[in-house]
Every structure is written in structure tokens, then in C-alpha cells.
């Protein structure tokens, strides 16, 4: 069975300088795959290439076997590709609930006029989305904060809101860009539980992280990126002991 996400020799240059060079990887459904590497290795660039925010210089991206290399970002999002951002990007003045509900956009069925005029179908849909969003909040333990201003909450809470929003899209592929950066171990561990359950429900998860320890316990397969190139891949233990990987991290 083909993996949900396949990258074939993906490359991206910026005026002759390769930011990402001949990267090939696979992210199968139901597992957590890790993409690690020192700072500046190009991990976020890879994510941007996958989600269509950056165009590929060469190579192919396949989503469930379909070539999506030329697809635009909104199309990829509608096809079930969700991501979180390295620097948290929420609507600070909107409530937690409103932020999460935004993620349901791709599932909206009520037409434009129904929404413009506030017809029953739009209201029913809004109610349904609110309920689903509250369910997500419950899963993340934040129901008491539903009405609070997202911008005024703690870092840990904001990371969760981003996560909930990404999950609201019910993705096939979830890209997590350094989701536990700046968290202590206990907080990170609680999020890890959620990642595991998301993967278990059949989603393909690509975890981009800088923190080796966190990644070890969570991922079934690892890719290591350094200076835009893949320098190692395989089982976490083996990769962790690979001398090239150790050097890349120590040298960084």
C-alpha cells in the first residue's frame, strides 16, 4: 500500500542556493514519521513545499498516489493536508472556540446565500461546528476557556488551539512543525498522547522536531535533514547512533 505522502527527489533553490536538495521520504498512514535535523536544516522549507506555500524547483510530491506537485495551497488543504506553524499563528482577538471553528471551513456545505442571509441551514451548520469544536476542546481539556481571547492565553494553551484547529480539518496528512518547542517534558508528553491517538485513527503524521529525545519515543521511522539534504533515515535507535547524525547535531 502506498504511503499517504511520498516525496520524490524534492528540491527547492533560492537563486542558485539549494535550501532543500533531493529529498525523498514517505509518510505512511497510521504512524508517526519524524523529520529531524539541526536548526536551519530546511525542515520548515520542506513543510512549506508539501503544503504548497512554496513551489518546487524540481521533484514530485504525491498524496495518496496522486501527483500534487503543482497544486496550490488551498487545494492541498482541501485535499486533507493540515499543518501547524512553528511560530503560532492564531487570530488573537477571536475566542478559542472561534479559532478552532475556523478549521471546519473545508467541511462547510451550506451555500453562500444561506450564510449571507442567516438561513436555517447556515445556523444549523454553525451549531454543528460549534458542537464538534467543543468536543475537540474537551479532548484537549480546554472547555473552560472556550470564550477566552486566544491572544491572552499561555503559550501551552495556544499550541493546543493550533493543534485543535488542524485536527478540525479532519486531515489525511498532519504536518506538525515543532509542536512542542519551548515546552517542558510533562507538557510535551501530554501532547504526545494526542499525536499517538491521531495516528492511531488512521492519519499520516509527519512530525518535524528539533528535540531528539521527544522524537525517539514517538516516531516509528525517522529522517534526518542537514543543510537541506537527507543524511540518514531508519529506526529511531539506529538513527540516534549514526555517527553522521551525531556529528550534524554536535556541529550545529
Amino acid at each position, binding site marked *: 500500500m502506498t504511503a499517504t505522502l511520498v516525496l520524490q527527489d524534492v528540491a527547492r533553490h533560492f537563486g542558485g542556493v539549494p535550501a532543500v536538495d533531493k529529498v525523498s521520504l514517505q509518510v505512511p498512514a497510521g504512524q508517526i514519521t519524524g523529520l529531524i535535523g539541526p536548526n536551519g536544516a530546511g525542515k520548515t522549507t520542506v513543510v512549506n513545499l508539501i503544503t504548497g506555500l512554496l513551489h518546487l524547483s524540481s521533484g514530485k510530491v504525491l498524496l495518496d498516489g496522486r501527483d500534487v506537485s503543482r497544486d496550490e495551497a488551498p487545494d492541498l488543504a482541501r485535499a486533507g493536508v493540515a499543518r501547524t506553524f512553528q511560530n503560532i499563528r492564531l487570530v488573537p482577538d477571536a475566542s478559542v472556540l472561534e479559532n478552532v471553528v475556523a478549521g471546519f471551513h473545508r467541511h462547510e456545505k451550506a451555500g453562500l446565500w444561506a450564510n449571507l442571509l442567516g438561513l436555517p441551514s447556515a445556523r444549523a451548520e454553525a451549531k454543528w461546528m460549534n458542537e464538534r469544536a467543543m468536543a475537540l476542546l474537551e479532548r484537549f481539556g480546554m472547555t473552560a476557556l472556550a470564550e477566552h481571547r486566544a491572544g491572552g492565553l*499561555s503559550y501551552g494553551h495556544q499550541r493546543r488551539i493550533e493543534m485543535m484547529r488542524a485536527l478540525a480539518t479532519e486531515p489525511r496528512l498532519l504536518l506538525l512543525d515543532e509542536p512542542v518547542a519551548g515546552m517542558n517534558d510533562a507538557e510535551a508528553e501530554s501532547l504526545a498522547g494526542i499525536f499517538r491517538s491521531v495516528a492511531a485513527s488512521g492519519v499520516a503524521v509527519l512530525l518535524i522536531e528539533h528535540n531528539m529525545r521527544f522524537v525517539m519515543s514517538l516516531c516509528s521511522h525517522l529522517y534526518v535533514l542537514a543543510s537541506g539534504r537527507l543524511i540518514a533515515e531508519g529506526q529511531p535507535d539506529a538513527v540516534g547512533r549514526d555517527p553522521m547524525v551525531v556529528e550534524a547535531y554536535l556541529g550545529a
Partner: protein
Amino acid sequence: MMNFFYTYQSLFDHILVYALLALSQYVVLRAGVFSLGTAGFAALGAYGCALLITKAGWPPFAAIVAGTMLGTLASALLAFPLSRLRGVFQAVATLALVQIVLSATQNWVSVTNGALGVNGIPKVAGTGVLLSVVVVVVLLLVAMGRYSVGRAMDVIREDETVAVSLGISVPYYHRIAFILSGLLAGLGGALQATSSYAITPGEFGFGMLVATLAMVVLGGRTSVWGALVGAAILTTLPELFRVFADYRNVVQGILLLLVIVYLPRGVADTVIAMLRDRRLRRRATPLPADPVVGDPASTGAPPVNPSIDAGVHA
């Protein structure tokens, strides 16, 4: 009491017309479209309506509808190319539009009577008509803001990258906002024509452009109330205080500067946010610490990291 009302009736009418124009400006700014074209579409609506009544003998209400349609059609045509632009470019393009319409109304004398304007427009848009129109428009806009269109616009305005990553088609919502704005402006212009007996090109120039922008900046661009509050304040101030009337431009200028630097969300939006925060604080229990997910005893857990869990800011 009624005496008071009659004395200020024309001021009230003026507020209502400008409320429509401010709402037209609000709609685009809420969606993150930096259009300054309200005055241009208002001119089209006003002249379309006025000329149909005075030169073609149309019945006034039909002319109002036609004027509105003219504004809507123009904005619909322009919405497509304009939705490909961003920020500064949209601003300059719509500014050019206002200038083009202004030039046309001033120079196409055979049709528009040039700088003398159009006179003798029957006053069919009395206070009752204006009030009903504004109420209906406000209801529709509040509904729009509450459901998918408003939500999508908010995300687009705040962070276009996020909107795109959630599958929201930015050009589509930009177009909707722009066309709605043209409709409201056209309507406002037509009603201005039919509530003040005469129109001149100068009314729809940069004075109107700046005024409507100032109203939305002052009141707030994320909620309908912002536009209404802004329109009410800026239309009333010159009447209440002579000094504001004489120095209208300076006041608007200083207001714009002070508000955008120190109170960027505008008066109404800031007040709404403050009220909401106060309501939450009064009702809520102390903020729970970052709970360990899935742990049923989480609400009793001690804070994991007190320095990070700083809690809600006012």
C-alpha cells in the same frame, strides 16, 4: 421631545447616509481588502439615480435601485482583477478609481452637468426610508459576520497564510467583500441624492474617501457597530462643536493618527473586547493550569509551570 427630533432630523438623516457609506468601507476592511473606492461607487450610485430621475423621468424608487445596481455592477467588474492584488496596490487602484469617477463627473458636462451638479432631485428618501434601509443592512451584515463568510473574512484579514492553509479561497472572499462594498456604496450614494435635493461632484471626492475611512478606523473595522459608532461620532462632532466644523480636516487627520497609533482596533471594537473580557472574568473560575490531557483529575492538579501559565490579560 419631538421638537428636539425635528430640529436634528437632517443631522440624523446625514448620519444614516454616512452609516451606509461607512458600512461599505467596513465590509472590505473586515476581509482584509484595502479598498478605498467607496466614494467612487457612491458617486456612480448617486449620479445614476439622480440622472435617471431628472433626465429620464424614472420613478424615484426605481432610480434608487438602478443607482445601487450601477455601483454593484462596477464593483463586480472590478472585483476580479482587484482580487489578484494585495494591500497597497488595491489601495492605489481604488484611489485611482475614485479619481477617474471624479474626473468623469466633473468633465463630462453634457451628461453630468459638470461642477454644477444635478439639481431638483425629489426628496423621497426621508428619515423613515433611511432608517429602515440602515436597519435591514445592519441585520444582514450581522448575519453575514456570524456565519461562514464572516469567519472566513476574519481569518483572511488576520493571517492570509493561515487562511490558505485551512483551504479558504482568498480571492473568492475578497471578491464578495468588494462587491458587497460596491452595493452598499451605490445604495448610499443613491440615497444621498434622493435625500438632499442636489449633488455635486465634489461631494464624492477625497473628502468622502477620507471621512468614510476615518469612521471605520475610529469605530473599528471588525464589527458592524464600529462603522456605526464611527459614522455617528464623526458626523455629529462638527455639529455639536463649531470648532470641529471649521477645522474638520485637521480633526479628522489628528483623529486618524491618534487612533491608528494608540487605539488601532478602534473605539467600538476595543470596548466590545473589554466588555467580553470583563464578562469572562466575572463568570469564570480561576484559569486552570495546563492540564494533563485525558486525566480526569486534571482540574485539581497543581500548576505545571506557573511562569508560563500567566493567565488571561485584560
